[in-house]
C-alpha cells in the first residue's frame, strides 16, 4: 500500500468510528461531552483559518459566536424564521462584520492586532448587555434570550435526544476540515502562508496579502457564527456573558496553539486533548479544586510553547509516521494528513 492510501484508509476509519459512536455510547452526558468536543474542534478549525494560516492572533472570536447565536435566535423567536436559515444569515452578518473589523486591524502588528480583537469582542458583549430593544429586535440585555422547547424536529433545529446534535456537529466538523484541507492546497492557502510569514516578501512578489487575509477572515467569521447558532440550539439559552466571553475566545486560541496552529490536524488534536481535561476535572474536582482545568491548561500551554512551539501535532505526526513505517515497511512512511 502506498502511504497516501494508508492515510486515506485511516481517515475513513476514524470518520466511520466517529459516526458509529452514538450506537455504543448511550449516556447523554458523554454524548454531550463529545458534542462540545466537536464544537470546540470546529470553532478552533474555523479560527485557524485566520489565526493559523494568516499568522495573526485574533482573540475576539467569541463575538462572532455571539453574532451567529443572536441572529438566528432573534429571527426564530420573533419572526418564526427557521434557525437553519437564521444560521446562514448570522454567518453572512458575521462575515460582513469580520471584514469591516479586519480591514483596519490587519494593518496592525502582532500585539496591537490581539488587543484590537479583544476590545472588539468585549465591546460587542457590552453593547448587547446594554441593549434591550434595537428597533423591533428584542435583545433582552444582560438577561439573555431563552428558546422555549416547544416544537422539536429537524426543521426547527431542536431535538429531544442528543444524537441529532451529535451528527449535525460531526458533519459540520468534517465539512470544515475538508474545507481547510482544500484551502491549504489552494492558491489562497499559499498566499496566506506567504503573507503570514514574510508579508513584505510576499507583497514584493505581487501577492495581495491584505485581500487574502480578508477572505480568510470572512470565511472564518462565517463558519464561527454557524457554531454560534448550533450552540444556541443545543443549550436553548443564550446569555451575553457566557456566549461572548473572553474565556471562550482565549480557549479557542489555546486549543489551536497547543494542538498546532496553521496545521489541519492541530485544532482537532488540541480539542481531543484539552476538552476531556476540562470536562472531567469539572465533573470530578469541580467542588474540591475549582479551576483545576485552567491551571492544567496554563501549564500545558507553557510547556508546549517552550518545547514544541509549533504545537503537539508535530511530534504526534512524527510518531504516526514511525508507526506506519514499522508496520508497512519503508515505502509506507509518508506525510500524515
Amino acid at each position, binding site marked *: 500500500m502506498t502511504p497516501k492510501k494508508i492515510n486515506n484508509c485511516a481517515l475513513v476509519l476514524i470518520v466511520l468510528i466517529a459516526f458509529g459512536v452514538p450506537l455504543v455510547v448511550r449516556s447523554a452526558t458523554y454524548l454531550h461531552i463529545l458534542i462540545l468536543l466537536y464544537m470546540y474542534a470546529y470553532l478552533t478549525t474555523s479560527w485557524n483559518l485566520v489565526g493559523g494560516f494568516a499568522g495573526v492572533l485574533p482573540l475576539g472570536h467569541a463575538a462572532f459566536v455571539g453574532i451567529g447565536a443572536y441572529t438566528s435566535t432573534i429571527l426564530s423567536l420573533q419572526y418564526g424564521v427557521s434557525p437553519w436559515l437564521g444560521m446562514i444569515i448570522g454567518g453572512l452578518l458575521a462575515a460582513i462584520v469580520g471584514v469591516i473589523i479586519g480591514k483596519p486591524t490587519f494593518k496592525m*502588528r502582532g*500585539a496591537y492586532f490581539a488587543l484590537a480583537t479583544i*476590545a472588539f469582542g468585549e465591546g460587542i458583549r457590552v453593547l448587547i448587555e446594554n441593549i434591550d430593544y434595537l428597533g423591533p429586535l428584542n435583545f433582552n440585555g444582560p438577561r439573555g434570550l431563552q428558546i422555549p422547547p416547544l416544537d422539536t424536529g429537524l426543521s426547527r433545529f431542536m431535538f429531544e435526544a442528543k444524537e441529532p446534535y451529535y451528527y449535525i456537529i460531526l458533519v459540520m466538523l468534517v465539512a470544515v476540515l475538508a474545507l481547510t484541507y482544500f484551502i491549504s492546497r489552494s492558491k489562497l492557502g499559499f498566499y496566506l502562508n506567504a503573507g503570514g510569514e514574510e508579508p513584505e516578501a510576499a507583497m514584493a512578489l505581487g501577492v495581495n496579502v491584505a485581500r487574502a487575509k480578508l477572505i480568510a477572515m470572512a470565511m472564518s467569521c462565517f463558519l464561527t457564527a454557524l457554531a454560534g447558532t448550533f450552540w444556541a440550539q443545543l443549550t436553548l439559552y443564550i446569555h451575553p456573558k457566557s456566549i461572548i466571553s473572553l474565556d471562550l475566545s482565549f480557549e479557542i486560541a*489555546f486549543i489551536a496553539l497547543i494542538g498546532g496552529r496553521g496545521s489541519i490536524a492541530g485544532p482537532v488534536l488540541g480539542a481531543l486533548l484539552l476538552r476531556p481535561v476540562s470536562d472531567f476535572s469539572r465533573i470530578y474536582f469541580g467542588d474540591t479544586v475549582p479551576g*483545576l482545568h485552567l491551571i492544567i491548561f*496554563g*501549564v500545558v500551554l507553557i510547556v508546549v*510553547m*517552550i518545547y514544541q512551539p509549533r504545537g503537539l501535532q508535530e511530534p504526534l505526526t512524527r510518531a504516526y509516521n514511525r508507526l506506519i513505517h514499522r508496520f508497512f515497511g519503508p515505502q509506507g512512511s509518508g506525510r500524515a494528513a
Partner: protein
Amino acid sequence: MIFVLEDTINGILMGSIYGLTALGLTIIFGVLKVINFAHGSMLMVGMYVAYWAVALTGLHPYMALFVVVPVMFFFGYYVQDLIIKPIFKAEKEVREPITVIIVTTGIWYILDNLTLLLFGPDYRILQDNPLRGKMLEAGQMLISVPKLWGFCAAVVTAASVYVFFQKTRMGRAIRATSLDREAASLMGINQYKVYNIAFGIGTASAGIAAITLVPFFNVYPTVGVLFDIKGFIIVVLGGLGSIWGAIVGGIIIGLIESVAPQFMTATWTEAIVYGLFLLVLFVKPSGLFGVKYDW
C-alpha cells in the same frame, strides 16, 4: 455643578491609580515588545501579598511597601527568567513573538486559579484599617484620602522610573535594548538580564499599585482581570511604551468612568471606553505619547 467638580477630581484620582496599575504593562512592552497578559494577575498577587502582610502583622497598610515591592520585583524577575526567556531564545528573530503573548496568558490562568485554590473565592477587605472610608472635606466636596495617596504614589512612581531610565547606567542599558536589542547585545549588554530587570520593575510597579488599592478595594482571585483589560486600553491610549502616557491614559479612563454616568446609564460608560479604544487603535495606533515606529 459642585458634583461635576467632585466627580472630576475623584475621576482624576482613581484614573491615576489605573495609570499606576498599567505602568508596568507599558514598561514591559517598551523593553520586551510583548504585551504581558498576566499583568493583572501580577497585580492580584501583589494585592494578596499586601493584604496578608497587613492582616498578619497589623502594620499600617502603606508600610507593606517594604515587603511587597521586593517580593514582586523578584517574582517578576524569575517569571521572566524561567518561563518567558526560553521562548524568547527559541524565537530569536521575531520582533514581537506571538507565542510569548500567549504564554503570558497561560501564566495569568495559572496565577488566578492557584489563588482561587489557595485562598478561595472570598472577597477580602482590610477591616478597620486607618484609611478605609476616610474622606477629606474641601468645601462641600468629599475626596477619598486613600485615592489621594494613590495619586501621589502614581506620580512619584512614574517619575522615579523615568529618572531611573534616563539617569542610571542600568536605565540606559534598558533603553538601548528597547531601541535595538541586537545592537545593544553587540555593545556588551546582557539582553536577557535587561529583560529580567525590566520585567521585575514592571511587576514591582504593579506591587505599588496593589498597595494603594488594598486599603479601599476588595481582594479576590479574579480582581486582576478588571485591571487587565483596563490596562490594555490605558497603555494603547497613552502610547505603548510611554511612561507618562500610561498615567495620562489612566486619568482619561478614570474621568470617563466618573463623569459620564452624570449624563447616561452607568453601564454605557464601558461601551464608550471600548469605542474610544478602537477609535484610537484605528486612527492613531501609536497613542497620545507613543513613538511612531513602534506599531
